[in-house]
């Protein structure tokens, strides 16, 4: 994926969500993944999934794990 296609906004949003669920008891990545499924349009999810598949630079560990579970 080219640098120009880096979905900065989505990466930022995913990390924000991960920071919340990281503080919750239980499986943080599961919480993030469910949040993405519940509130993100499929195109947005596809974009972040593709970014992770291309290396996922910028995604925090919990966000990266959660995005991985969307596949």
């Amino acid at each position, binding site marked *: 994926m080219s640098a120009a296609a880096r979905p900065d*906004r989505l990466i930022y*949003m995913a990390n*924000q*969500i991960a*920071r*919340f669920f990281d*503080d*919750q*008891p239980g499986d943080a990545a599961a919480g993030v993944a469910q*949040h993405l*499924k*519940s*509130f*993100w*349009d*499929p*195109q*947005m999810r596809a974009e972040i999934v593709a970014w992770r598949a291309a290396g996922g630079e910028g995604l925090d560990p919990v966000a990266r794990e959660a995005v991985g579970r969307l596949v």
Partner: protein
Amino acid sequence: MARVLEFDLGTPETVGEPIGLTIDGAAVTVPEGTSILRAAAVAGIAIPKLCATDSLDAFGSCRLCLVEIEGRAGTPAACATPVAPGMAVRTRSAQLDRVRRNVIELYLSDHAAHPDRGECELCAQAAALGVRGSRYAGGAAHDGLPCDESNPYFVFDPARCIVCSRCVRACDEVQGTLALTIEGRGFASKVSAGQDELFLSSECVSCGACVQACPTEALVEKAVLEVGPPDRSEVTTCGYCGVGCTFKAELRDDRLVRMVPWKDGKANHGHSCVKGRFAWGYASHRERVLEPMIRTSIGEPWRTVSWDEAIAHTAAEFARIEARYGAHAIGGITSSRCTNEETYLVQKMIRARFGVNNVDTCARVCHSPTGYGLKTTLGTSAGTQDFDSVEQADVIVVIGANPTDGHPVFASRMKQRLRALSEGGGGAKLIVIDPRRIDLVRTPHVRAAHHLALRPGTNVAVLVALAHVIVTEGLIDEAFVRERCAIEDFQAWAEHVAGPEHSPEATEAVTGVPAGELRAAARLYATGGAAAIYYGLGVTEHSQGSTAVMAIANLAMATGNLGKPGVGVNPLRGQNNVQGACDMGSFPHELTGYRHVSDEATRALFEAAWGAPIDPEPGLRIPNMLDAAVAGRFKALYVQGEDILQSDPNTKHVAAGLAAMECVVIHDLFLNETANYGHVFLPGSTFLEKDGTFTNAERRIQRVRRVIPPKNGFEDWEITQKLSTALGYPMAYEHPSQIMDEIARLTPTFASVSYDLLEREGSVQWPCNAAAPAGTPVMHLERFVRGLGKFVVTEYLATDEKVGPRFPLLLTTGRILSQYNVGAQTRRTENVVWHEEDVLEIHPHDAEERGVRERDWVQLASRAGSTTLRARITDRVAPGVVYTTFHHPSTQANVVTTDYSDWATNCPEYKVTAVQVAPSNGPTDWQERYEAMSARSRRIAPEPAE
């Protein structure tokens, strides 16, 4: 349409044991404490009166309501004399008539002759008692005094005033501003605004309570003088804030004369503010667009076309875009200014016709975190109480809200409860959590027990610190928590907040709130009796907006302040139908009644009713639509009643998104700022011109009634229906009541709602169904909607919007009393006399450092952009904090706000922007360019010659 008549019972209702008495021989039973005047009125006996009215406490000054009581000497005033068991009252006798006639003559001696419009109670009483003149000399004290015409909406003519004090008492008891007083003594006494000032320059907030109270037309609406007294009226619901005041819209012929707050209105109980009562002139403003217009590109002038052509053109464009880019390139946005039925139709059209969930509403940018936070913790997205609940609160917490400006009629109710404390009548103590010293902190007879003036962006840290005190000092309502809440979640939460890093002492450096003050506030909230939290956009419009809402719910659950009157978690909704728009399935992940689109059973219900498949995946939110547009994937947008260019954050990004679309349809009253990027303009109807319902902040569903025909030709639901039909998804509703019937069939919380029910009951609060046929004033009585209440760990995370050397100040934004939202309506009324422009509030220290003086032009710059406006130097804001409003497009405060948003909902972080302020000598380049572009974009091509 006849005139809606209201009967004045003379003094307020009381609650007490039944008392039996006779009045003119008729047996009457009324509650203990009732006045004789009211008891007689209840029995259908009208005792003459002037200074008494049932919205005000008895005053006993006019001496017209005198009566005779068997076994008692003299002629006591019926208004000030309570009933007693077995009392025998006479309201008519030769002596009483003689005394009353004499009193009337005395009043007439100081009441200038005036045209009889049938509304002067003194003239009516004189006629009833056969008094045709006065034997007494004229009232030199008031004749010839100048008439005060300074207020744009009403006049005060002292020559007609009988100094009965109804206006003064209304300002005191109903509005709570105390702007009026009686100045002087004896014949020289007169009503005075402020300290003998004009009404306009005094502290008067122009709520109109004094005008409504005046019995002699000394205070009267200018429209009544200009048009004449109304001859018919219709009850409807205000189109402004989330309080949802009901009014009698009073007309003469087909012309609206005035809006009079309806006494039976369950949200406002006969009170109003300057917007609802007076600011309706925009409906006939010269800038209102009444004919549809289209253009092929935003660089061209608009071309006026027929409705048929506009609808056909829009349908063809949407079909073209669907064919080329797919249905996911299309979406719709509704406004909380639209009715439930209108918003329901827009989301239905987008979902059923295009098979996508790209629908959103302006609640995205205000209370979407309330939806997420309250659904997660309590089970549904709604305030827990009715407004009347405030009368039973012992402690009131106001967080991130400014009720006297944003929700003025409810603020008056709140002030009555707060004032009762200083007046020895019980009352409530007040905690304000706000960076600014809002009016409630210190207002006549009200003083906050604690004002936690936190740094913008630190709500969650403060809320968690409050929880820390409650947990570590053993102030938890353990019985409530054990019975009503999920205990494991509670334990995790309690362990979290009890950490020493969350103590007030540890967080003081971050929040700026003194630890001792915060501890005292926490103790008061937890132990002060019934404690209610009211919050606004100062809570939601943050990167942790949803977290803060959940932190508030945690506090309420921990202290047992839910499920009964006087308590609760109460979001103050900004616009009139925020609650309703959210209820109606306007969010891209939910169908009506907050049911997720992924729920198969719910989808099946809608698919059967609509005859179309529903996408099980969430659609795009407003900011996602704009991002997708900039990326080239989103091409067509139907915007009903919303001005996203002015109201949404980071104006340049919004403009870029709109400019990237191929068909932007604006359905509105005016060529608003978003219309600069529009390709189709569909003229909308005002709330006066349509039928429907609004749902206010207390979940109260109320009728909006068509008062005058729509100047644009159609009600808004009819326009959406035309568009849907042209798009190939026919709709054939004949009246909005049929739309509500469909909503009720598909929405369990609305199952029993119908226009017939609303006619019978006046209004009803959802849930309204078989389990609660009369509605639900207070929610979560026995159990939470979700079952057990869920405590959520709410760790404070600092916003990424940081101050630094380049941008050292924090900007927060809000609204003022006289203006509403982006000002599209109120800027087109006389309300501009109170707010001609947005100004920047800046602390004296910050102003001095920058060489800024009062009224100087200053440049307000952030990482997103800059604008200029005038400075107002005030210590209402703390050092390091600046504040402005967003009512004027010439300022466009949202040029400065950023893309940061709530983690859960994308609600923008309007309340925290790092900025710099510097002296300036005029508009920025951007403002000048925008003004020129806006002028170009609003051009309308002349009609071709015949």
